[in-house]
């Protein structure tokens, strides 16, 4: 079936078998390998992408369901010459080690900061509960998210 999406601002489409998940479509049909397959059952969050403003496990969502939707993946965070504040802060804090959880983690964090730019530690933990990281122990991730929020607020203020 033909599925048409706007991915990171670009219109993309592919002819996929109906049982294709959104994750498979992004990775195998659109060449966007940022989102990862960690568990295939909705537990780990490595496949997290934003669909029409809300974050979802793309391993559980059929591509057909996303037809006509606006999708943001990790590839859509940075511009050609600037990192997203989250990416900058994650790098500064060393918040990623093996990095496999990173794309999903950053997308969940972005989804949080888009609606709540000054989250408490509790809110960050709650928002990232669906993103497992086996390497870091989360502390640096939480610090990075909070600082990225502050940075985004400052940028907002200076505009």
């Amino acid at each position, binding site marked *: 079936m033909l599925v048409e999406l706007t991915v990171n601002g670009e219109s993309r489409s592919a002819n996929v078998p109906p049982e294709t998940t959104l994750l498979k479509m992004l990775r195998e049909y659109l060449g966007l390998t940022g989102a990862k397959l960690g568990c295939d059952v909705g537990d780990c969050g490595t496949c997290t992408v934003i669909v029409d403003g809300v974050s979802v496990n793309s391993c559980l969502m059929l591509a057909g369901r996303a037809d006509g939707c606006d999708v943001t993946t990790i590839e859509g965070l940075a511009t050609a010459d600037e990192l997203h504040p989250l990416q900058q802060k994650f790098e500064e804090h060393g*918040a990623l080690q093996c990095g496999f959880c990173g794309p999903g983690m950053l997308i969940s964090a972005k989804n949080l900061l888009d609606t709540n730019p000054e989250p408490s530690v509790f809110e960050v933990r709650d928002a990232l509960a669906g993103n497992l*990281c086996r390497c870091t122990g989360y502390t640096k991730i939480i610090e990075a998210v909070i600082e990225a929020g502050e940075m985004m607020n400052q940028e907002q203020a200076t505009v």
Partner: protein
Amino acid sequence: MATRVKDVQTNVEDLVTAREARAPSRQPLAVPIDQPVTFPLELPESEARLRTPAVGQRATRPDGRLHGLGQTQYIDDITFPHMLHAKILRSEYAHARIVSIDTSEAEKMPGVIATLTGAEVPENSFGPTYQDQPILAYPIARHRGDGVAAVAATTEQFALDALEKIRVEYEPLPAVFDPLEALEDDSPKVHGGDTNIYTSKVIKKGDVEAGLAASDHVFERRFSTQMVEHVPLEPHATIASWDGNGRVSIWSSLGRITLGREDLARTLQMPQSRIRLIGTVVGGNFGGKNEITNEPIVALLSRKSRRPVKAIYSRGDEFVSSTIRHPFIMDYTTGVDNEGRILARKIRLVLDGGAYCSWTGTTIGKGSILAPGPYNIDNVLVEAYAVYTNKTTTGAMRGFGAPQVCFAYESQMDDMADALGIDPLEIRLRNGFSENSLSPTGQSLQSVALKESLTQAADRFRWKEWQA
């Protein structure tokens, strides 16, 4: 919208606070838990500190940016034209003789290009210490995670469908799951022979019986730990491409590629010079990716199909088939004087090894040496045995046996402190290693900051206040 989240949160937070208020007399610490630690840490100046200026500084990882951008290429992000996907069929029994395997129906399934069984592997055994593990079990399967056959097909789903068509005839054999039972004479023997013990270690220092006899108090207790899977977020992954010149290139999430190449040369029975093993960025290892798993299978499927083949473990494969941490059963007998000084410690460790040896040698070594704990003890006896059981293979995992024994000896330190009415910190300071202490194996230890670390840490988390 933000207020909304907070509304919901109040409820949960109320509940949490209410729960904490009901907790036994523990006063919340004055320092809020989420107060960030500021870097660089202000650490006391000492000679050792001046020689190691990097300690306590924040380092940025060179690969951190790519991770954040989603540009890091893990194996599953790599594809080749014409590439096939492989899946592995696992044993139906924990212990069985494979009477026959029939892949003919599977081969007729749509998309299937090649199949493989253990009988086709040139040298069907590998392992970092003993080469007791088959690539694909044949003729005996020793645990449920043992692969018995593999399929390469044009899609993962075709490969999975084909697995269901493979007919395996098993003759179930008696199995053993409990490591203590596995020690018994009449237990089923996982690898034949007359014992399931495959590695042991003894450490002797002084005279442990005399030390126990001279003690004012003797504490005895059994501690045990469970199996732990590494759960790297990136499952084990491999791509192999066998070319027309008879060379094979293998992209693998393996952490130790030089060792892996040796195992590949052995199992494929070809010179290392014809094997190109490419270690890619690893999405989490923790010891679980220290030896080959499906690399030879994928390589042989590529040779048979003349196409690149990729195999990614499912999360299920990961749990049953990749290695895990050794469960330990630990019997501790410790003699102390009235002041809590340890005079003797006698330890028996039984390591539940699962079906194959893997990194047990290292684990039993480190586990045994560290078993008495970082304490000055004149009389020590450690006896450690690793036994086979019909369960998931245990292997390397962070600390190689150190965390298991640490749980036991530190628990017993607390037991003793409690029984003798000594402060748990104090009993550790009385017994702890200091500069030039001798380890149980007679190594003279340098740069020992155990007591300083304990005292500093206790100060920082206000141990005294908690005790009050």
